[in-house]
């Protein structure tokens, strides 16, 4: 037989009806009302972040010693602070800072943690043991102690707060990614890659890492809220942003001196943090349901 006939039973190709992750996400968000509404609020927040400085009713930095600590009114919807600055304007401008801290700290931690987690999980053995023990130690340290120490070492300022928060969110990312990697490493397609001769670096970058992305994204959204709160807690302990900046945590911490008689001062920044973190968490939760129903840690 000179010409072997190869069966090509391609009479009709059935498109299996699983669509891409993104379509699934949209569809499933339509079902998960909480996540959907959260997404709307997040979009609104992003708009505020982008356009904040142009939509404030007052100059957020302008002090007016004749109208300090005024309760909310039509003029000042969220009242004024101890220097007579308009609280609403400060909240609007501060969104950028607060979300900025949260996002950049978590991203930084995610990058570091992902690298560590991939290495730890993929190479195993002593590499894994060393990295995981270090993570254990970092875990065992009370977060804020770590942060206080970091800020003390690095000096005050937003940048260092970000580094500090990133630093202590790193081990949890490392753990999550390591866990995923361990599992993915055992999957058949990794073995298939090895059997076609792919190098370790290629396997990690091209095959393991893409599999962890959805988990990482979910974990990032869920951690941003935590990072915002950590930043606020650091501000509370006096270690946060520059005090005059309208970062929400800084506003909160300043306002505690007035809790007894200017409740709006602590209420509104608290509310802003609450809503932001809440929607981020709800969104992350929804995202997890879609992308990664089996996240554990």
């Amino acid at each position, binding site marked *: 037989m000179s010409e072997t006939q190869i069966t090509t039973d391609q009479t009709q190709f059935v498109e299996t009806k699983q669509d891409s992750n993104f379509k699934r996400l949209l569809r499933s968000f339509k079902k998960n009302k909480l996540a959907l509404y959260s997404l709307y609020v997040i979009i609104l927040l992003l708009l505020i972040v982008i356009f904040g400085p142009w939509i404030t009713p007052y100059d957020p930095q302008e002090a007016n010693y004749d109208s300090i600590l005024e309760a909310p009114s039509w003029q000042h919807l969220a009242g004024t602070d101890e220097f007579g600055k308009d609280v609403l304007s400060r909240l609007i401008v501060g969104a950028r800072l607060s979300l900025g801290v949260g996002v950049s700290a978590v991203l930084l931690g995610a990058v570091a943690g992902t690298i560590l987690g991939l290495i730890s999980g993929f190479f195993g053995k002593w590499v894994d043991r060393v990295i995981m023990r270090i993570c254990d130690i970092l875990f065992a340290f009370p977060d804020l102690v770590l942060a206080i120490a970091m800020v*003390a070492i690095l000096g005050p300022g937003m940048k260092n707060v970000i580094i500090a928060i990133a630093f202590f969110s790193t081990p949890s990312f490392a753990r999550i990614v390591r866990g995923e990697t361990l599992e993915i490493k055992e999957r058949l397609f990794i073995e298939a890659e090895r059997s076609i001769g792919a190098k370790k670096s290629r396997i990690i970058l091209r095959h393991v890492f893409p599999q962890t992305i959805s988990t990482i994204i979910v974990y990032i959204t869920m951690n941003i809220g935590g990072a915002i709160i950590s930043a606020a807690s650091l501000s509370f302990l006096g270690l946060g942003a520059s005090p005059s900046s309208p970062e929400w945590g800084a506003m*909160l911490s300043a306002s505690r001196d007035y809790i007894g008689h200017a409740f709006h001062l602590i209420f509104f920044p608290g509310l802003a943090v609450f809503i932001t*973190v809440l929607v981020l968490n*709800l969104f992350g939760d929804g995202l997890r349901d879609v992308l990664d129903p089996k996240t554990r840690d």
Partner: protein
Amino acid sequence: MGRYIIKRIIGLIPLLLAVSFLIFIFIHLIPGDPARLMAGKDATNDEVEALRTYLGLDKPILEQYFIYMKELFQGDLGHSLRSNAPVTQLFGERFLPSLQLSILSIGWAMLIGILLGVISAVFRGRWPDYFGTITAISGISVPNFWLGLVMIQLFAVQFNIFPAGGIETWKGYVLPSFALGAGIMAMITRFTRSSLVQTLQEDFIRTARSRGLGERAIIFGHALKKSMITVLTIAGLQFGFLLGGSIVVETVFSFPGMGRLLIDSIQFRDYPVVQSLLLIFSLEFILVNLIVDILYGFFNPKIRYN
């Protein structure tokens, strides 16, 4: 089982040694000089030097570490630079309140968390689920100092139901444990929910249904036990954290726990105290994890240690 535990504990020794060294280096990296802080702003340099020598801080760092380790092996955790009280005593005074607070916080958080989680999972996608989710997530969406301050304002000042601080009576634990537990409750709710949702889709649940078991028996008798494994891990981890005290909540409620001791000691660079406390926390954390591992085996028959 016993052998396993002993093995694990022996395995801890090198880890703790490494930890002690890291902690030592770490806290000495933090700028600040205890002698200077103790001497006060109007002290002259000579007076500060004298104090530093007196405190033994003029010795090279490594020597200080070896001295510390030598004492540690003799069971001495050192003395506070500041009040000269033995660290064991300081720790002893704070441990019980912290432990009680931790147990209380974890306790109610687990109780409510699991309940909400079960409700959310069972009524998945309907309003009880939304209610459970929002309640839970609210718990981790407020900074706990904010929650604390607002609760003091409300329950201590306005209604005078609970004290604003101090732990003379059991009432003093209520507000702090609420502030501390809120976040944990949220976490437990979420993990219970997602784990239960997942478990409820497993084959063995269908088997149980096929045998005519009622929903309650299925959820509590079959599904929850499996889900508890995850929940337990989370709770254990959180308990480990809690034992180290919460700086923020303890500050807000003037609660005499580990967190405040730690932060006070850090502020004064009271090295022996900080060092020993951090070491103890690491040990506690590791032990709690060990206990969780063992309980894990109890709930998960596949991981029985022998």
